[in-house]
């Protein structure tokens, strides 16, 4: 048991470190290291532009999507080399946020299901950050039950005509392409009538509208489709096979090992170390210490769980299912930490404007944003189902709509 690199890993790390040192946009280092929670914002620069410049540089140096094959824009790196790269890229990895959906979900789906021509045309540009991709799955009435989606695609010979609405689409307003799942046959059970496409987001009839979220911010979009035409050559997989294709995408969503999730623990520890309560520092209070300790061991548990997965990769093995707990643990913890930090602030905890005494309102922001952590990318409940079914081998839920034609499924609760 050790934390050391193998000689090959050490050599790879050295190469990566030198390259980052020589090429990273160091003027943003401070700003990036300070933003630990939520979306990254740069005070004086456009995040997407700065990100694109960094991604382009990485592509030129052979560090963009490095685990992809060379012919599609990567460098054919092993999974453990990818983890090492992420460690060495450090805070600059935050700049890749606009590309993560493309790199992590759309790209792998095109790689698995696209024609050779499509792969050579789209993947290198996606890897280099020249073209940004978004994912068009969720709908207002199809969230956890995404297979219940309503957006229609109707066949017109060599092309398809799409009508409907998607929601919670990150980055739709700056994306060039979108991965779209739509219903092509409403007369068969819901999972069987879906087909996957990709489309140019500048196509006529595509309208992107930002959503004002519960926390007051606008990070996601609704995307409306009105008679949008998609060539049949942009179909991924067979007609009616969209559900299987989407599983490739969703599986990749949960594979991001080594990506450190924010837990709020370091911020809370620092806050409690400085906050004066009536009887002294918060961190000297037994009740505070007890909670802090419980959160700290969850946070360290997550860290060492990811180390176990990395170790499996290092040995060329597939990591076990234990990494599936990350978001489930950290999402709820963020929410609890935020609420408790505010409780310690007493009456002043109500302010969102924030001075130094209330840690500049960071816990208030955390409180307002944390509900989304427990919903996006699989709700806590869906994640528990996945653990119960795929890890523990418990039976799947009884699905009353499984064999019912889609257009016979009730659409209203009452």
């Amino acid at each position, binding site marked *: *048991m050790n934390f050391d690199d193998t000689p090959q890993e050490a050599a790879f790390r050295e190469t990566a470190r030198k390259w980052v040192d020589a090429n990273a946009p160091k003027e943003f280092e401070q700003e990036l290291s300070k933003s630990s929670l939520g979306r990254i914002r740069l005070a004086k620069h456009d995040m997407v532009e700065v990100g694109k410049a960094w991604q382009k540089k990485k592509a030129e140096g052979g560090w963009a999507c490095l685990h992809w094959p060379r012919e599609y824009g990567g460098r054919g790196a092993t999974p453990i080399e990818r983890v090492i790269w992420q460690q060495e890229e450090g805070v600059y990895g935050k700049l890749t946020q606009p590309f993560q959906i493309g790199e992590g979900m759309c790209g792998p789906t095109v790689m698995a299901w696209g024609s050779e021509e499509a792969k050579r045309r789209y993947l290198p540009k996606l890897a280099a950050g020249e073209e940004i991709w978004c994912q068009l799955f969720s709908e207002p009435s199809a969230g956890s039950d995404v297979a219940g989606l309503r957006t229609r695609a109707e066949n017109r010979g060599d092309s398809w005509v799409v009508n409907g609405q998607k929601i919670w689409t990150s980055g739709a307003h700056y994306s060039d392409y979108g991965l779209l799942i739509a219903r092509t046959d409403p007369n068969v059970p819901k999972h069987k009538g879906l087909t996957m496409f990709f489309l140019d987001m500048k196509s006529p009839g595509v309208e992107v509208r930002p959503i004002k979220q519960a926390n007051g911010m606008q990070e996601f979009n609704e995307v409306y489709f009105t008679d949008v035409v998609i060539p049949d050559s942009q179909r991924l997989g067979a007609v009616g096979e969209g559900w299987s294709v989407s599983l490739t995408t969703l599986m990749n969503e949960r594979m991001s090992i080594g990506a450190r999730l924010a837990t709020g623990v370091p911020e809370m520890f620092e806050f409690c170390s400085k906050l004066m309560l009536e009887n002294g520092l918060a961190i000297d209070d037994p009740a505070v210490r007890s909670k802090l300790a419980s959160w700290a*061991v*969850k946070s360290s*548990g997550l860290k060492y769980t990811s*180390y176990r997965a990395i170790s499996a990769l*290092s040995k060329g093995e597939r990591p076990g299912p234990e990494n599936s707990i990350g978001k489930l643990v950290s999402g709820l913890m963020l929410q609890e930490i935020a609420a408790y930090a505010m409780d310690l602030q007493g009456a002043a905890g109500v302010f969102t404007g924030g001075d130094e005494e209330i840690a500049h309102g960071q816990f208030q922001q955390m409180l307002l944003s944390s509900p989304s952590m427990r919903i996006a990318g699989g709700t806590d409940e869906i994640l*528990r189902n996945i*653990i119960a079914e795929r890890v523990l081998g418990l039976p799947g839920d009884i699905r009353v709509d499984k064999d019912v034609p889609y257009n016979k499924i009730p659409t209203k609760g009452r």
Partner: protein
Amino acid sequence: MNFDFSDDQKQLRDQARKFLAEKCSPKAVRVVLDGKAPYDKELWKGLAEMGFLGVAIPEEFGGAGAGHLELCVIAEEMGRANAPVPFSSTVYLAAEALLIAGSDAQKKKWLPAIATGEAIGTLALFEGKGNPTPKNVKLTAANGALNGVKKPVPDGAIANFAVVAARTGSSGRENDISLFLVDLRDRGVEVKSLTNLDPTRGQAEIAFNDCKAEPLGGAGEGWSILTQVLDRAAVLCAFEQVGGSDRTLEMGRDYALDRIAFGRQIGSFQAIKHMLADMYVSATLARSNSYYGAWALSTNAAELPEAAAAARISATQAFQHCAKNNIQVHGGMGFTWEFDCHMYYRRANAMALGLGSLSYWEDQLIDRMRKKNAA
């Protein structure tokens, strides 16, 4: 990075699991649970023959000379099997205290006897309520004689010898405490067995009346040795707790698959699935924290104090959580003496107190994290 046990260590774990599945069935555990034997002597002998008792004891003192990582994988299996033997008191507490502070003669006298299963050892630290603090040690040592009462002493009624924490000063500081080694067959020792939460691991009261004792380690070094012993034992116990967590999770899962209610397997209800998923989360966090503890223990790293506290808290919480919800999954049957759920529930909650309570270790963790942050 290789944050995992080696293939040899995993093989040892499999070997231990197989051995315990055969020699330590729930039926065997129940013999001790029902008070028909103070501990499982056959199993204890078998553990010695397998080399498990002395796995971390150097060869020159009669052990296998393997190391603490090997002891961790065995500990996990001991916890999984709920073994009714004085393993933790003898191996994690007494043997570790000897390894840290024993003279050559003391090691030669006791360690080979531990490895062969002839000697059972324990640590006599607590004196009634409260946690491990120097202030709570009231038993005195003067002129080589101990006076005072220790309780609870784990496996005290079956132990041959004890490491005893005694007060040798009154400055109010840690160096008031010294350790002594006592052969419990000596005069001036009075042992009384006490009933406790987990009858598969006995607890005793030991009164020392002008009992002759030899020092273990230097005068005034007792507390610093104890801290090291408790940290090591915290990691090793964490592995037992991880084994117990996994076992109770499996018991709950298996029952949820077998039991039918409302015409379906109860494991198809989300209320049950989610409860089991949460148990899996706790057990996974505990395992990962314990691995870090194992690394720190095996390399004697400066991180051991913090790692041990984190492993202790995480594993205590996980075992309590899994043992409690295992009963809940079983419903009424889980509350019968006949089902095994309560044996783990008892063990989980007794273990949570054995080296100091959860809140004590939470306190320790915060102190240790602050110390690190300040450095």
